[in-house]
């Protein structure tokens, strides 16, 4: 409201100054919540939409119980007349566990206290049946402070297992759990003061590994609502602000898949590539020459398709999470809908300065096998820009 009034009053084009200050601070703590002093916290910046380890701007070591605070100038963290994107990352690493934790920003509020950067050793393991065991990144019972007044305290914590083949991301699956607010009696609502994680079992179906030797590791993401501090100049209006914190554990598990898709080596009709990059067993994203919602495959041999796996399917942002798939196999046609709400950790992918895509990983089990055929057509309710791999299984 104040911002709107500000722009109404000063509609002559005044506004952002390169010297604007953003005061960003936080705390580095152990797994048990104790402040850790002497830990280096780094601010890095990339001159693109892709966040990552870029140019280092500032570094300081935590003190006074694990605290850190940076004064960032707008000119350092905003393109400011240059156009394009600029991503700023604040992060640190824990020597003992090897876990790194960071938060990425494309824009900053005036003053912000980040959620704690806490250490995390998940003790991650994968059972033979695909079940994944780990400790959650946010300890059970963590206190939750509401953002401001009646503004709901919202927390979403996602753990994702990531499978890599030849360094490329082959599969990502998360426990897509949210709404972690609980009250003393276990209910949820504005009065919630404790944070309890209600995990959904994470299992790796056999198809997702295919027959590849896969390196698995665990990452976590927390979407938290924090309070932007008033600066004391005006009335001190405090506003809620959402911050995403990411953890990447260095614990790794090697796994060997044994399932071969019937679509391996299939020809992609309509694409003049041989072998087809969508069925070659490589995770590299392939940019479709023209965005399309229709894929036609000529299998090496006829098969009755029952399971479909889409890897790294990237569409323009804003697509509905409900996927509708029509599969035609010979004379057989079946339409299914998949409501699986996958929360991909890097769900927004920038392919150029202006185009952002959302990336999806889907395993769709059909209610019945399709007709035996080698000619398979997939029609979806969205246009794909890029796709890693399409795998069909019997």
């Amino acid at each position: 409201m104040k911002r709107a009034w500000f722009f109404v009053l000063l509609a002559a084009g005044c506004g952002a100054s390169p010297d604007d200050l953003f005061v960003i601070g936080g705390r580095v703590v152990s797994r048990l919540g104790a402040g850790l002093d002497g830990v280096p916290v780094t601010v890095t910046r990339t001159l693109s939409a892709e966040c990552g380890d870029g140019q280092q701007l500032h570094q300081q070591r935590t003190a006074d119980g694990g605290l850190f605070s940076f004064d960032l100038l707008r000119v350092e963290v905003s393109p400011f007349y240059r156009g394009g994107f600029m991503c700023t990352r604040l992060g640190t690493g824990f020597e003992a566990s090897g876990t790194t934790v960071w938060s990425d920003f494309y824009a900053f509020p005036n003053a912000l206290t980040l959620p704690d950067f806490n250490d995390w050793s998940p003790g991650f393991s994968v059972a033979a049946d695909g079940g994944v065991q780990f400790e959650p990144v946010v300890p059970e019972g963590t206190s939750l402070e509401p953002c401001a007044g009646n503004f709901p305290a919202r927390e979403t914590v996602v753990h994702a297992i990531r499978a890599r083949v030849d360094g490329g991301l082959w599969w990502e699956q998360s426990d897509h759990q949210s709404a972690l607010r609980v009250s003393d009696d276990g209910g949820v609502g504005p009065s919630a003061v404790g944070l309890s994680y209600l995990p959904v079992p994470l299992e790796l179906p056999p198809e997702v590994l295919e027959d590849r030797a896969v390196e698995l590791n665990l990452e976590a993401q927390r979407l938290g609502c924090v309070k932007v501090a008033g600066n004391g100049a005006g009335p001190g209006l405090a506003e809620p602000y959402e911050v995403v914190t990411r953890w990447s554990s260095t614990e790794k598990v090697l796994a060997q898949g044994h399932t071969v898709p019937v679509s391996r080596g299939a020809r992609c009709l309509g694409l003049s590539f041989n072998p087809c990059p969508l069925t070659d067993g490589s995770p590299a994203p392939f940019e479709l020459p023209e965005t399309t919602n229709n894929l036609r495959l000529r299998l090496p041999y006829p098969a009755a398709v029952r399971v479909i796996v889409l890897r790294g399917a990237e569409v323009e942002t804003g697509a509905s999470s409900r996927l509708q798939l029509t599969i035609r196999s010979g004379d057989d046609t079946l339409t299914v809908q998949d409501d699986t709400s996958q929360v991909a950790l890097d769900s927004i992918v920038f392919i150029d300065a202006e185009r952002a895509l959302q990336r999806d990983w889907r395993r769709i089990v059909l209610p019945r096998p399709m007709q035996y055929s080698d000619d398979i057509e997939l029609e979806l309710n969205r246009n794909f820009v890029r796709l890693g791999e399409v795998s069909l299984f019997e």
Partner: protein
Amino acid sequence: MRLGVLLVLLAATARAQDAGTADVAPPEQLSALNAPLPEGALDAGATADVALELTVDDTGHVTAADAIADAPPVLLEAARAATLALTFRPATLAGQPVTVKVRYVVHFEGPRPLPTADAGWAAHLTGRVTSKGTRDAVSSASLFVDDAGTPAAETGPNGDFELWLEPGKHTLSVRAAAHAPGTFEEELKPREELQVAYRLVRTVLNPYETVVRDTADRAEQARVQLSGPELREVAGTQGEPLRVIMLLPGVTTPLSGISYPIVRGASPAATGFFLDDVQIPQLYHLLLGPSVIYPDFIDRVDFYSSNAPVRFGRVTAGVVSAAAAKSRDDRVHVSAYVDVLNAGAFVEVPIEKTGTNIAVAGRVSYTGLVLSLVGKALAANSTPVADFYDYQARVEQKVGRATLRLLAFGSSDLVGSRADDPMNPSSFVTSLFHRADLRALIPLGPGTLEAGATVGFERQGLFTEQLGQTQASFLMSRLTAGGRLRYRFEKGPLQVKVGADLERQQSDIGLELRTASSLFTVPRTLGVFGGAFAELAFVEGPLTVVAGVRGDSYLLAPSLYRFSVDPRLEARYRLTPWLMAHAGAGLFHQAPLLLINLPVTDAAALADGLHEVAQLSAGVEVRLPWGLELHLDGFYNALLAARERSLQQFASGISTLDDRLAATRTGRSYGLEVMLRAPAKGRLFGWLSYSLMRSERLRRFGVYTPDQTLAEQREAMLPFAFDQTHVLNLVAGYQLPWGVKVSGTFHVNSGRPESGEFSSRTARLQRTDDGLYVWQVVPLDQVDRLPPFWRLDLRVSKTFLLNEVSLELYLDVLNVAARQEVVTYSYGYAQLAGVAGATVLPTKTPQGIPLLYPSLGLKGVW
């Protein structure tokens, strides 16, 4: 006087050679004889003839007039003087002009005796002489009956006259100063009683004469005082006296045409606005529109660009002090106007029986109708809204020797956009205030005591509506209550003023969302401000010295106190009748400032300390020939403690590197002002004002590398966000015949810094490693200036004088050339069409606001 004309031509005596049978044509009189009868030369009813011989040369001029008969010397001299001024068509001989002598007799008649009241047969003529188009009496007007040489009567103070005349037809001529003579024909019967009303047309239409009713304050300090057409007829001001301030030296504005004065480089909130010493939060509707006080309610506007009198406290830059019009007890006064966007009226009623005077005024806009047509024309899905109203009321009551006055006034503005579909939100900005002031003026001892009490309310903010209900609002409001005491007396060359004032301010901020209860509340802010002053003036001959001191206290409840002491000294000395010098110095304090005065901001920010300015000024006033005045002034203002908060910081919560310096910031402003003025006497008025000035603040800023990292921090004294080095105004107005007046205003200003505070931030092209050119923002000490700007305002009006009403039809256009002032630049990149590859071209596009304000209206005064 009676003019007697009798021409007798006896013979033409030709000096030419005898031409035998050549034709001789006598001279022909071309000009009328004007031979006034010398006073007392003849008794009533007497006559006399003066015979002269005139020599008329071959050009028709009279070169000699010689008496050819005896005549009283005084009549002879009058006749000679009159005939020497005659012109003739020269006499001709055979077609050629020749010199001739002719005989000429001038006949004089003494004044016709008028009957007296005792003459039972005489007609009684009574009447009143007034200025046409008004009800103003014309006193000391002379009435001449039937071209008599001496006036038969003279009007009294109320314009009344009385005459006894012979029955029959008479011609009455009425002559008065500053009026065109009037001639009236009357036919009277024996013993007839006839009452008439004669109306004379003013030679210079000036319905706004300033009438001085009080003894001028001899200790008035150096200031510019405007009156008459200088307040009402300046082009581009819509007849608003308070807008004329913007055209005086030392005054600039954030955007040309907007009436938000920046005086000598100070923040706009550092200038105080007062109506009869009651401070008001804003002067104009919507910053661009009419003033919040009806023009007829203002008798005088005093503008102090610096060193304002000590009675004005807690203000550190200029003071605009409007004096409410004094009550007039002669009759009812009414004026009203209507123009394209708003209408207003003023009514003043004296009640003689009770010694009461009541005046009310107000105006209201009907912009909705016009703007809805604009919205439809633009095919927009919303309608712009710009509604306002204001009101003033004054009741003055004599109580014995004292006078009680109640003054109430207020204003409301509503700006925004109303969605045509009620399902869509509509957004508005609102600003309103109300004031009520009760004042008593009591003669006490050798002087006058003034006691006053004021209450006020103001609110500013914004809100959104949907389906007729408020969805969200952010409003700041303030309730004020205060009192003041002042005593003034004079003894010989000394004039003493003492006084005190106290004001309590209670401010609230509220943010409400319809979908949730208020998520934001700020404890009510309570501020108490008090002050006391003493001023001693010494006025003796050419020297005037005024020394004053003021103390103020500031309290932010419960326990934050600030105190200040403001000494001031002003001296004026008239070196010669045409040259006066003046100088002044003073210390001024004020609560911390935002760009504009907002409720709560000043009291709430007291923790920052007080804004402190030391002012020095000196100048001369020179009276030039032709009634011109030249004012030269120099000033230096040292901001010892610049407590000017960033509006961005207040509104968005984002602070800057520079804000870290706020607690120790200083600044300065200095300059030279010139004003050449032709005061409003007669048909012409105008002035030329020029300011050369600089306003600076100590700033902390970053210096960046080409890849936008911070290289270092610097501090330097840099131009203020509103600094404009050159400002020139040329104002001129002239009254043409037939009641037509024209005026024009030409304004030029140099640009302010493109520092990013109220504009874009200067960027320059930088070549990157991969050969591209990108915009690179520059540090604060390297910014450019926005381009200079000029505009032309024009006003034309035609006055129609009816019997007791004058109507003025006017057209006043601000920025008649519709020029756009560049207020910011847009830096970006454009794809180069038709070129292979991703080629982008850096672009720098000026963006301006075409502020054009035409005002077409009709005003009537009765």
